[in-house]
């Protein structure tokens, strides 16, 4: 792997930061200009990220060192295929959500919109920073920025309930961050470096007990953000945030950053060979499997649409980490594909929930019968998203689930194969009644769709999910990238 020195990673990270400053300076007096900054920053960020796809696919690493923090440890960006997947996902969906949030925020005449757009841009600064980081300390820095910039977004409504949700969010995530800091310091003490290595930085360092302790700290710390049970409580509460926040941050950027960090640690800090016995990974996988099943069971009981989606998110996040923890090549590939595919699908669902809320002020599923005839485009997109998560071809979710199941089979862990299948079945149990009631329930109302700035992004994401299901390597090159990661991690080269 040859490092290519380029300013592009730094530019991709800086774009939202500059955007955030411009948003703040423009303020509420010129809302059109303010929102154009947001879209402009999103497009610029995606452009910079996308420009790095070609060199990364050639097997190179795009590198940019900002400054040295400690001897041999720098504030450094190193873009590899794995970081690329997450960066592509977050930055491309930010464009979509920027457009969507204009419609959402204006329709609801929300307060403090400048703060909303400012924090949103800062959150993307953090998320893409996490994706492109070249070592743990840089990653930690952006991880913290992401955590803190999201706090005002969670508490946006400023009702006592929203503020409580914000506090809960901070307690979980800052508490987790402290454990990560501890784990990081312990790893540094053992390895003398915090750079990611495809063979595992900590391989052969320290005793097994120490390594297990460090892994546990990392998993609890990052797992809080990835909403692994029992650390998931903050996510359903955070659904009180405006829907664009739930859509991009609590289905894609924030929680996926947690997932991303977990997998980074599993594969690049520990590596498949860090432990002498595979039991450690098995235990981790079992914890994740419990989350997968429990989250789905809880989801069935939820009547609030966003909360149901939140539990579905918890389920899928653990599915992804579970895939990585199985460590067999097809399971890894499935995990790397499910990361972006779930992002596209879940954001569609959330944006539908937001569109329904804006149009009808309904949040409860029991009130939504007949909504499919009132808002046909939105509900069509919802149906696509839901079917994708269940794993129905030709929607993208099918492909990733296929690999995950194959991976579980290949790893010889039939119990996890069962977990994946059961989770898909439960997905169907709680998604299809919504769809059924939307089309066949209630009385006929005339068509009354949400504003165009909201329906368009919804349709775009649903269409993208179908396209990615048929041509999974289209534009974003997710499959090539996933293959590349699997090759470097398990190829042993």
């Amino acid at each position, binding site marked *: 792997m040859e490092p290519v020195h380029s300013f592009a990673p730094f530019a991709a990270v800086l774009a939202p930061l500059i955007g955030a400053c411009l948003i703040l300076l423009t303020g509420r007096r010129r809302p059109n200009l303010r929102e154009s900054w947001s879209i402009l920053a999103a497009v610029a960020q995606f452009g910079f990220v996308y420009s790095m796809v070609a060199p990364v696919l050639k097997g190179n690493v795009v590198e940019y060192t900002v400054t040295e923090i400690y001897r041999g440890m720098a504030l450094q960006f190193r873009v590899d295929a794995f970081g690329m997947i997450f960066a592509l996902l977050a930055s491309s969906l930010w464009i979509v959500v920027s457009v969507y949030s204009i419609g959402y925020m204006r329709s609801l005449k929300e307060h403090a919109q400048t703060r909303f757009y400012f924090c949103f841009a800062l959150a993307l600064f953090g998320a893409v920073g996490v994706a492109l980081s070249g070592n743990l300390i840089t990653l930690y820095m952006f991880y913290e920025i992401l955590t803190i910039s999201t706090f*005002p977004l969670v508490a946006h409504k400023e*009702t006592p309930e929203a503020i409580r949700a914000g506090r809960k969010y901070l307690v979980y995530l800052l508490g987790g961050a402290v454990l990560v800091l501890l784990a990081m310091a312990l790893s540094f003490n053992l390895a003398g470096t915090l750079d990611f290595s495809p063979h595992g930085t900590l391989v052969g360092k320290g005793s097994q007990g120490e390594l297990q302790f460090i892994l546990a700290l990392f998993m609890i710390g990052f797992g809080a953000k990835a909403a692994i049970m029992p650390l998931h409580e903050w996510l359903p509460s955070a659904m009180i945030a405006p829907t664009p926040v739930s859509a991009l941050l609590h289905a894609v950027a924030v929680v996926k950053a947690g997932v991303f960090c977990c997998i980074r640690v599993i594969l690049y800090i520990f590596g498949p060979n860090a432990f002498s016995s595979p039991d450690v990974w098995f235990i981790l996988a079992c914890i994740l499997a419990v989350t997968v099943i429990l989250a789905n069971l809880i989801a069935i009981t939820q009547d609030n649409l966003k909360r149901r989606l939140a539990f579905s998110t918890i389920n899928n996040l653990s599915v992804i980490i579970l895939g990585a923890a199985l460590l067999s090549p097809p399971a890894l590939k499935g995990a790397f594909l499910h990361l972006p595919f779930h992002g596209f699908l879940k954001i569609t669902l959330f944006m539908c929930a937001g569109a329904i809320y804006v149009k009808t002020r309904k949040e409860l599923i029991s009130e939504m019968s007949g909504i499919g005839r009132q808002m046909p485009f939105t509900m069509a997109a919802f149906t696509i998203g839901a079917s994708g998560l269940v794993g129905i071809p030709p929607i993208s979710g099918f492909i990733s689930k296929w690999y995950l199941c194959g991976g579980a089979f290949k790893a010889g862990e039939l119990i996890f194969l069962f977990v994946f299948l059961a989770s898909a079945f439960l997905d169907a149990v709680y998604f299809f009644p919504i769809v059924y009631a939307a089309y066949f329930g209630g009385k006929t109302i005339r068509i009354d769709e949400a504003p165009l700035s909201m329906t368009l992004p919804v349709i775009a994401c649903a269409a993208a999910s179908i396209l990615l299901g048929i041509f999974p390597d289209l534009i974003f090159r997710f499959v090539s990238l996933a293959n590349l990661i699997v090759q470097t991690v398990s190829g042993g080269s």
Partner: protein
Amino acid sequence: MNTEHFPALIVVVPLLLSFVVFAVGLVRRSLCLPIVILTLLACLGFAIGILQSVLTKGGTVRYYLGAWDPPWGIEYAVDHLNALVLLSIAVVSLLVAIHSRSVTAKEIPASKHGPFYTLLLLQVTGLFGMTITGDVFNLYVLLEIASFSAYAIIGMGEGGAPFAAFRYMIFGTIGACAYLLGIGYLYILTGSLNMADLRQLLVPLYESRVLLVGFAFIMVGIAIKMALFPVHTWLPDSYTLAPSAVSALLAPLFTKVGVYVLLRFLFTVFDPSFSSQMFPVLKVLGGVATIGIIFASIMALAQTDLKRMLCYLIVAEIGYIVVGVACANRVGLIGAILHTVNDIFMMACLFTVAGSITAYRGSRNIELFRGLHRTMPVTLAVFVAGALSVVGVPPFCGFFSKWYLVLGTIHAGQWVYLGVLLAGSLLNAVLFFRVLEKAYFELRDESGHAEPHGRKRPLIDRIPLTELGPMVVLALLLIFLGLFSNNIIGDVIEHAIPQTMRIH
């Protein structure tokens, strides 16, 4: 430029000019502050010059006052450690002085401006002197200059300030006496007061009981002056009630100069092995500091007065630094020194903000901060920077020093210290987000309606630029110090670590 006399000038110039300020204050009060600012500007120049000559020389710069050779004359000795502290004092005192213009105009009656600025400058003189001197008795003299001007100037504050100042004076005098007794013992044993000289002369006496008693007295004296738990009780009252400009100057600087003196005694006057191996001094300090961190963080949580909350935070921060020292290894000590410097800037940042809010709102009660973000957006942004730095969020400087402190405790295998450091950062996070939540969020009912607010949000705060400028500079410095922490460590702090601890 000839930098040879800078070590003397950095003390003599503010000392002499403080009397000029007093004289001028009798005639034209409006001229007092400009003179103070110009003097501090000159001191900043001296501090930069001193740091440069230390860096180019790569070792200790010595200056003999009146050309008397040590150990008879007073020696000013500048190495990497105090050059760095001097520069921090110079930068912060200059910024605080600029910030103080409008705040002081509101708080202090115009007739007292002359004495006020005289004392302010004397205060800085004392701090510079304590930092630069290489003579333990001269250090006592300058400590008392700084302390006495502090007692007087704190007494000028609101409400119960004279009482708080009196209490501080009692405590401070006990501390100063203990210190004086301690160096008295050393003088009896060795006949010398020069630090470099004492170091040579004391080595054969390390087993002496008299030396041990002297050392204990010195430690107690310094502990009181740097407000180490449990002898911190003078600090919250006096710094809360002091005029805003004074607490912004004293809170970051005085306690940290105390830390510097502690480091001087532990590692220069005495051999590092004395306090780390022969007697368990560092263990005692570390144990006390860990309790102090938890105690002060919890006390801070219980406060509703912003300044009082920050005062308890200082006690906790002193605890962090001492924990770093107590690790007795290279990384821990780097963390302690870096945290000392960072903390000077963090506290300056937070206390100037507290001063501005007090002056603007007329109240420091956190419960009344609701809606502050509408009227003071920039001030609050600066507060956020300071808060995140204290909590330890990168890229703010507080994270980097905490990182070294954490590494230091791991190296030393001190798991209790480690746990306390981490728990402390969590408590600090709770502390600050409680304030930020009040300041940034309106109270809304379920339908999303906030309490009515008539005013439109201004783009920047309606406070004078002389207040806003220094605060913004301090906030930017927090990021700057964070990103360049490696340079600060590599070029300066590494050289300040005692020889015997460098190998690791």
